[in-house]
């Protein structure tokens, strides 16, 4: 597939241009969403108009909706900077940072890892299943310092292994990773459901879920309210990890190998990179990151494992694309999507507009981010005085006189 081109286009563009394009894409999708809300507001019935524009009444007020979507996600920060809604936003952001950076790592290695969802699920499941068992053998006092890292390690290990499978299939059997990872997502979900409702089911609960993990193994919430399922420690860990991944990619030999094989597999081979091994290694790395995300989901949000894990994996793809597959950019993009996810709940409660709207916005953002050419075109229209000859030639490399004598 054109993963190479994806990477070329996204990683290659300068960070600044990416930032502009992502911003413009965001604005444009908000504008399209605006029209959509008004149109939907005409289709439905209601007593009094929520908004009136140009003398026409609409059932949904876009301004209110966007207000709730974007500001609602932060709650009332001035009254209480630790409010629950803001905590939810950060909690979503934290997990999206993991899946986002997982996708980004694979992307940079030229692999389209759609399987972060599955990797997250197995990582979370194993953590949730193993910790209660292990906790009984660990004395209470030292609990958190041992159990928590152990849980994260388990998540990383299982996620890594689960990521290595499609990696190995790609490297040694030429099996398309897009397909295998999608299939493995289905498998992970089903197997997790099976295990959660059979061997590891919490006998106390009606719901299908595993036994609760002892509190001492869970993330301490620090300043935030424990009921909000958010931990500053986890958030800090995510930030540190993003920076670490950035440094690994940019400053290490492994990162060099990985990026090289992502950009130009043949050049990588030429440079002594074992292509197959790099594919497996980067998928393992990517899977491990997603697996930690799963462990954090379990240790910070759920406190046990429940089937029906939200689509963090797919959102991670979105986050990574929006961030141009740059680990540092993933932080910002994850925050945006954390806001969208948390804000959609506020919208659902505060307004009549169906929350699926946020899903549409998400799709529109991706679509517009995918077409930088469109914004360049508009940009050129607007800043015609800008020097046209800047930037590198936009060719497919067929330059340089291939002639022979």
């Amino acid at each position: 597939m054109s993963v190479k081109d994806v990477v070329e286009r996204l990683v290659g563009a300068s960070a600044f241009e990416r930032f502009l394009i992502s911003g413009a894409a965001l604005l444009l999708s908000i504008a399209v969403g605006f029209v959509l809300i008004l149109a939907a507001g005409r289709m439905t019935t209601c007593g009094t108009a929520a908004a009136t524009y140009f003398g026409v009444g609409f059932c949904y007020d876009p301004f209110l909706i966007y207000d709730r979507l974007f500001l609602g996600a932060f709650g009332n920060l001035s009254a209480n900077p630790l409010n629950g809604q803001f905590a939810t936003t950060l909690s979503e952001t934290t997990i999206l940072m993991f899946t986002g950076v997982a996708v980004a790592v694979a992307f940079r290695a030229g692999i389209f890892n759609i399987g972060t969802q599955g990797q997250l699920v197995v990582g979370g499941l194993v953590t949730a299943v193993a910790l209660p068992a292990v906790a009984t053998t660990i004395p209470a006092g030292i609990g958190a310092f041992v159990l928590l890292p152990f849980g994260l390690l388990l998540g990383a290990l299982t996620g890594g292994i689960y990521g290595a499978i499609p990696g190995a299939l790609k490297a040694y059997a030429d099996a398309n990773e897009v397909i295998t990872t999608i299939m493995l997502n289905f498998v992970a979900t089903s197997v997790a459901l099976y295990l959660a409702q059979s061997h590891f089911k919490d006998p106390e609960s009606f719901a299908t879920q595993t036994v609760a993990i002892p509190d001492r193994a869970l993330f301490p919430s620090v300043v935030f309210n424990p009921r909000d399922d958010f931990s500053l420690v986890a958030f800090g860990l995510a930030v540190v990890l993003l920076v670490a991944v950035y440094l690994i990619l940019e400053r290490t030999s492994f990162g060099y190998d990985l990026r090289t094989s992502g950009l130009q597999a043949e050049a990588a081979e030429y440079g002594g990179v074992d292509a197959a091994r790099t594919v497996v290694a980067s998928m393992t790395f990517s899977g491990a990151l997603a697996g930690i995300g799963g462990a954090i989901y379990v240790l910070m949000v759920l406190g046990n494992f429940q089937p029906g894990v939200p689509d963090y994996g797919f959102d991670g793809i979105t986050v990574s694309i929006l961030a141009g597959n740059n680990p540092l950019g993933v932080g910002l993009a994850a925050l945006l999507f954390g806001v969208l996810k948390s804000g959609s709940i506020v919208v659902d409660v505060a307004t009549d507009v169906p929350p699926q709207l946020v899903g549409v916005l998400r799709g529109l953002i991706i679509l517009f981010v995918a077409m930088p050419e469109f914004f360049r075109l508009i940009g050129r229209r607007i800043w015609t005085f800008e020097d046209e000859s800047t930037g590198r030639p936009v060719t497919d490399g067929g330059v340089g006189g291939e002639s022979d004598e």
Partner: protein
Amino acid sequence: MSTAVRLAGITKWFPGVIANDDVDMSVEGGTVHALLGENGAGKTTLMNVLYGLYEPTEGTVYIDGTPRSFDSPRVAIDAGIGMIHQHFMLVDPMTVTENITLGNEPRKWGGLATDRKTAREEVVELSERYGFDVDPDARIEDISVGAQQRVEILKAIYRGADVLILDEPTAVLTPQEVEELFAVLEELTAQGKTIIFISHKLGEVLEAADEVTVLRDGKNVGTVATDETTREELAELMVGREVLMEVDKPAIDAGDSLLSVRDLSVEDERDVEVVEDVSFEVRSGEVFGIAGVDGNGQAELVEAITGLRPQESGTVSFEGEPIDEWSRRKRIREGMAYIPEDRQERGLVMEFDLVENGILGSQHAEPFASDGRIDWDTSRSHAEDIIQKYDVRPPNADADAVSFSGGNQQKFIVGREFERDPSVVVATHPTRGVDIGSTEFIHERLLDLRREGKGVLLISSKLEEVQGLSDRLAVMYEGKIMDVVDPETVTEEELGLLMAGEYPDSYESSRRADAAEPAGERR
């Protein structure tokens, strides 16, 4: 005879480049007209304008005296122009017939279906008329390059082309195939077609063309009749100065064997054995050349030696030690440098800057990396060294590889590989697509290495190059080494025959470089 094509004041701009600068040119009907120029002179661009692929920034195209404006090849085709591109425009998995009729398929059932029978008959009929030997049902990917070229010509004629443009048609052919092509061209002009062919080979132009137009830096610097000019005159027009094509190669005694290949067999992607039982050795202080038409196994041979392709059988030794099990990385580390054939696919990561490209292959090695961490300061000064020593322009280590011209990309690769302090250099088409100045420079560097007692394995399809630089010269044909000859004494004709898989009648074993050690024989 009338003027078939006239270009008047054609100017073509690309962002930052003037490819054609006010070019006038006219071509008589029924003649062969050559377009000569160095790399990047604007030949292809001019012809693309004529063919409607590019719209000229300024200027007019006249066909048979009437001005035409082509904004797509379709219009040009309708006006009777056909073009055979430098890179063939054929759809590999389709058959010869399908390719020839593409876009002009005969239909039946009111257009609901292609009439495959008629199409085939028409193709057979056409190729018989011109005496072409092509199998109408073969797939393009299965036929030889020469045959593909004939398909391209048929394709143009099928569309009713009266003017045929051929872009460097001989670059990929053996000398014998070139002769066949010229016969075809003669046949075509005899039937009233007009031919424009692009070349930068003086001999060919003089042999096959009636008239020649020379481009330099996008300008027409002269149109002359071939029977009124000389090689020297053309060369000077083309380059803008007098050229000496001599290489100064002092004699050196070859030393120990550095690289030895024994009974090596290699398979290609389709599991076809494309290198069969090849044996040779490269000694210290020697340039060992391999000549041959592209696609006779040279690429696979080199990839096997450099560790990019598995060996089927045989042994490769490096400084006396078998290295069959060595990874690519180990080969680099132990001193095997490699200038790859395809600089843009293999040699450089196009989206990396030169600092990053400078450590390609050394990214795990001291002094660029320690404990898995890359030292970017050292890497930067390394890249700047290469840029300075090898005159890479513009001298900007932070620019991405893609922004450099082909010649400068090549110089950077050559620099990087030579600066590894290798004991063996494998150089594949090291000057392909490189202008004369840079070519001279690269040749000198290779000879420097030879002087320093390194071994050079040189693969090139340019005869002057391999002949001029090598101490011993092997000719490869269909995966086998035909013979190893002495480049000083062998004639171009003999080489041509060997490259075509035939032993020349005039063949004398004395011409062998190493009469005591015939190729393929075990020691």
